[in-house]
């Protein structure tokens, strides 16, 4: 600081430039650069984070443990086969009895979704009615407890189908995600991924050949 003052004093003795010059810095290159960087960062920023779909599978039965008995009337088996096709039947396929008939569906909103919704109507309407009440303000509960309530509804579910998802080997991963997504959309309380058994393989084979 002191130096500057001294210098000015020195200048004062000699010629003094009367014209005061406001220093004008040409900002154009800086602006250009800032603009360029801004564009770059705007384009590279990914705002939408990827989403995840949570799935919870039942625990693997221990070796000397019998797998839990399945209610025959609630069982709904969804067979995924090649070319995005879905086949489903109700009940259990017992090789000693006449085999159930397979019905074909697809992943559109009028396909397997409708089937699942019709069978899970009670639970589905219960949940959607509650959601509606929350949105309209009839039911004032915090967001977290909405999820808790839905979980409780799932647990209390006594009539909805228990869906067994069985995929053949030629199926793409996309179909698996689709069908699990259907479970979430239609609020199916119980579902699991299981291996396809020989009886069902045969059923699929005969279904395709008779078509």
């Amino acid at each position, binding site marked *: 600081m002191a130096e500057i003052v001294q210098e000015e004093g020195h200048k004062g003795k000699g010629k003094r430039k009367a014209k005061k010059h406001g220093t004008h810095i040409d900002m154009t290159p800086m602006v250009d650069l800032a603009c360029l960087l801004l564009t770059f960062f705007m384009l590279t920023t990914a705002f939408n984070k990827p989403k995840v779909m*949570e799935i919870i599978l039942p625990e693997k039965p221990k070796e000397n443990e019998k797998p839990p008995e399945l209610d025959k009337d609630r069982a709904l088996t969804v067979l995924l086969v090649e070319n995005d096709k879905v086949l489903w039947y109700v009940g259990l396929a017992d090789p000693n009895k006449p085999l159930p008939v397979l019905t074909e569906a697809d992943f559109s909103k009028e396909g397997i979704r409708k089937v699942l919704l019709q069978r899970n109507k009670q639970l589905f309407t219960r949940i*959607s009615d509650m959601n509606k009440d929350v949105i309209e303000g009839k039911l004032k509960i915090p967001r977290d407890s909405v999820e808790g309530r839905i979980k409780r509804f799932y647990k209390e579910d006594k009539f909805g189908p228990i869906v067994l998802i069985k995929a053949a080997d030629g199926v793409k991963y996309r179909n698996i995600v689709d069908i699990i997504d259907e479970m979430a959309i239609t609020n199916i309380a119980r579902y699991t991924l299981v291996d396809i058994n020989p009886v069902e393989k045969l059923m699929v084979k005969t279904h395709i050949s008779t078509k």
Partner: protein
Amino acid sequence: MGKIKLAVKTPRIDMTPMVDLFFLLLVFFILTATFRPEEAAPITTPMSTSNTPIPDAHLVTIMISKDDKVFFNVDNGTDSTEHIRAKVLQAIGSNYQIKFTPKEIKKFEGLASFGLPYTKLKEYLNAPDSKTREAMQSGIPIDSLDNQLMMWIRFARTYNNNLAFAIKGDGAANYPAVKKVIAVLQDNNVNKFNLTTDLKAVELPAEFINK
């Protein structure tokens, strides 16, 4: 009548506010930008209606490419002083009798997903650039005889016990590969995991829309 001569002046625009704004935005984008880590393989995830965002940290990602190769990634967690990746690598090293140099461990910490058998790890960590690294990714073996994915998951869980698991599969991956990965997870007692998907809208058949 004398004409008044107006001095021709080039109009000067004060750019300061604009520059201010630019820099503000620039700083914002720089700070919010999270650079996409080097991906081992391009993966197009399938769509679902799930709206849950992916967890930020403490996540194991198992990727399945469309040619059914399996890749693995575990993050460093929120506290980088814990060096989780380094510990996992050392555990793998001692399990398969490989000694990693501090330089290799440091390199591994900085990388993201990878998919190669342990025999190639050293070569992978000493590769000069990302192109060479990418060419080396042949997938992690998950056969029942040589299940290296199992080991990675086990050691990752040893050093970080509140891990979440995400499967990021390509929509065109084949189901048997996915089934194997899920089986490995279940063998490790992971029954709750996430499937990474892209968002799509929910559509319902007309009679089920709650109005």
